[in-house]
């Protein structure tokens, strides 16, 4: 094997031992690759099978863990759960007001011992079954609660699952097994099917079943929605009331939704115009306008930390007109929500130097063609649009009817308006052929209102229309109030309140 002392022969010198080691190394390498490949396939196969199995995998003995068992019946849900030894735990059933943010009141609870258990929920969630919820642990019935036929008297049209509230952080994380929120079935008569659409932040009736530390308690959820909620999709304001929603089309409009009226469609659209004397300084025609920025302060450009304490009942936000750094006028409007006024949102010019040169503003309330506004009430004087048109002089070019707001001595002028249809407009559109090409609002029947401080209100007028841009014929059912136009002085920080609530007979309930 040894061939001499030349450098070349020294470089090529291999011992038998080297060859054996090298060959073994290559063999081990190939074996590792093959075994690793098989390992990956086995892991993949295991994951697939585990996803079908209800086997409980406990990675951390100190954490509550669950595995859902396959559903075998419509009204039963079962889980395998692991309960750690580090605390006293309770299995809790809560039923009542529920939302994505809220934990309903506990209606019954039972201590659950450490170890592995099987939990089953039987939900008889119909009026005939009296909304009875029965919970079993390891086959033993431990909870049985009947909410009664009248809990949701007409039953529900749809129900939705929901996750555990994000903001109810606690020292130990609860483990939710099931949660359901019911949309009560509205009764508009046979064949008048109503298809509601709203989000899970709205308070509805429902239940949650969860395992929690025995000493854990929960505050009622905040009535407010503040960032980090997404203002584009969820809005900010009141969860069950009006929410300001950022709108891109068109960006100048202030759009308010009210999902509790069973629609995510805009309910209130307001277009503002600001004046310095007679000069219009900002309107939807202003070329340099970019967007309305919603912030928590009247001045400054950065959004501060929004407070979202569950005890807080009011929320203030500021709309800043974004016009570029060199813009001469950058109006700021203050918005206010108050949980004690659940149907309303307040607006006023913010107390900030940016508004110093604004002397008056005009608000146009849009939406008459989507809501078919045909009834109006000023103070206690309720009239149909037809009567109004015959009583009041009409501006020839703009179909503008000036409303008589001079009667009365109250400090506020109360105006209410709504459609003359009693059924939801989505049903009207579906059942009356002539409305087919109109895009009517899809929510529950709604009533609109506003309270204007008499001291700053110069004029209110209604612009009527008997044509719809999509229709080649006159509007079915006659003309509507297409928009309301309000002329306001600058004033000294008085609030203008707008209201959108369930439909009610005008005259019965003073604003």
């Amino acid at each position, binding site marked *: 094997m040894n061939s001499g002392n030349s450098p070349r022969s020294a470089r090529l010198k291999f011992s038998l031992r080297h060859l054996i080691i090298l060959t073994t190394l290559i063999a081990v390498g190939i074996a590792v690759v093959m*075994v690793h490949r098989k390992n990956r396939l086995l892991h993949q196969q295991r994951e697939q099978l585990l996803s079908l199995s209800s086997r409980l995998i406990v990675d951390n003995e100190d954490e509550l863990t669950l595995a859902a068992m396959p559903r075998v019946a419509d009204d039963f849900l079962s889980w395998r759960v692991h309960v750690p030894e580090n605390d006293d735990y309770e299995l809790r059933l809560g039923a009542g007001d529920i939302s994505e943010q809220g934990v309903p009141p506990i209606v019954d609870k039972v201590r659950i011992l450490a170890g592995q258990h*099987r939990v089953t929920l039987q939900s008889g969630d119909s009026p005939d079954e009296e909304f009875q919820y029965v919970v079993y642990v390891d086959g033993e019935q431990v909870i049985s609660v009947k909410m009664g036929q009248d809990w949701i008297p007409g039953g529900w049209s749809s129900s939705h699952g929901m996750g555990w509230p994000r903001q109810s952080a606690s020292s130990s994380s609860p483990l939710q097994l099931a949660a359901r929120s019911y949309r009560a079935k509205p009764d508009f008569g046979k064949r008048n099917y109503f298809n509601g659409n709203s989000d899970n932040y709205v308070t509805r009736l429902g239940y949650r079943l969860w395992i929690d530390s025995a000493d854990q308690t929960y505050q009622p959820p905040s009535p407010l929605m503040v960032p980090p909620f997404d203002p584009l999709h969820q809005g900010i304001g009141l969860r069950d009331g009006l929410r300001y929603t950022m709108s891109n089309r068109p960006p100048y409009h202030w759009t308010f939704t009210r999902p509790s009226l069973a629609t995510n469609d805009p309910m209130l659209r307001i277009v503002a115009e600001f004046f310095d004397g007679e000069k219009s300084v900002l309107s939807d025609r202003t070329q340099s306008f970019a967007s309305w920025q919603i912030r928590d302060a009247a001045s400054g450009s950065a959004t501060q930390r929004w407070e979202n304490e569950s005890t807080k009942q009011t929320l203030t936000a500021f709309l800043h007109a974004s016009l570029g750094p060199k813009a001469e006028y950058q109006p700021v409007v203050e918005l206010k929500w108050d949980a004690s006024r659940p149907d309303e949102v307040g607006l006023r010019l913010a107390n900030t130097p940016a508004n110093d040169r604004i002397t008056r503003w005009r608000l146009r309330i849009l939406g008459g063609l989507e809501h078919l506004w045909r009834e109006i009430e000023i103070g206690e004087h309720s009239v149909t649009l037809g009567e109004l048109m015959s009583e009041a002089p009409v501006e020839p070019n703009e179909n503008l009817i000036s409303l008589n707001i001079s009667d009365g001595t109250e400090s506020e002028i109360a105006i209410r308006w709504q459609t003359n249809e009693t059924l939801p407009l989505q049903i009207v559109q579906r059942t009356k052929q002539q409305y087919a090409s109109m895009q009517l609002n899809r929510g529950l029947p709604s009533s609109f209102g506003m309270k204007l401080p008499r001291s700053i209100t110069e004029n209110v007028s209604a612009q009527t229309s008997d044509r719809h841009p999509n229709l080649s014929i006159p509007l079915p059912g006659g003309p509507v109030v297409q928009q309301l136009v309000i002329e306001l002085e600058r004033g000294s920080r008085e609030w203008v309140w707008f209201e959108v609530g369930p439909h009610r007979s005008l005259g019965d309930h003073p604003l």
Partner: protein
Amino acid sequence: MKHALRLLLILALILGGSVLIRLTRENGRLGEEIAQLEAELGRMSIDDADRIYLVEIETPQVPPEVASHVDRVWQFRCYIPPGYDFMRMSGGGRVAENGIYHSGSSGSSSGSPNPEATHELLTISFQKKDNRSVLFDCFGGSAGTTSWHRFNQEQLDDSLVVQKLAASNQRPRSFDQDTILPLLKIYDPSTAEEKEVAGKKFTTYAGGLFVLFPKTRTSEFNQLHKGETPSDFDPSWVASEVSDE
């Protein structure tokens, strides 16, 4: 240098060997776990990733507190190939011994096709509710119920005929994506009635069926389930049952 190389080789050998031993042990453990899971969920090897595979689970997991409320449960492990676009139909009323003829009430549902292959559990169960026979089905997290009107059996006993597409005592079956899959058919043989549809006479029974079918076969399915025969009909479009129970 020579010693360093030798040391490196030996270290690599030791490292490789230990990785090999660890992976082999882990594979053994995984293999055992998979065997246990397959004993629970049915064995299935996918030879052709574009076909649908079905195997019946011998003993569905039904908690005792639920079992007392359910008359019968069938569970199938299904392999759904990527992009398989299908509908589910469940209906009770009158059915024929062969094929997918059905008259009576029915419900159907569909989802979006998944670009990835999936393994799903299909559960079908029977419940008596307010003197109605209610069929519950749950497939990949989506569940529904259908009332089988005119099928008011007091009990699902041996007097009924149950036809299934896969049986737990047989190997998994596979089907191409164009096949209509009558997964379960139940009827009472004592309720035979002659029926004539489109000039063709056949016997119908009180019962019902649960079918998966590709959306591409919707029109053929609609004809077949009315008792009509589509043009160019090939019997292989409808999968045949594996056995009677």
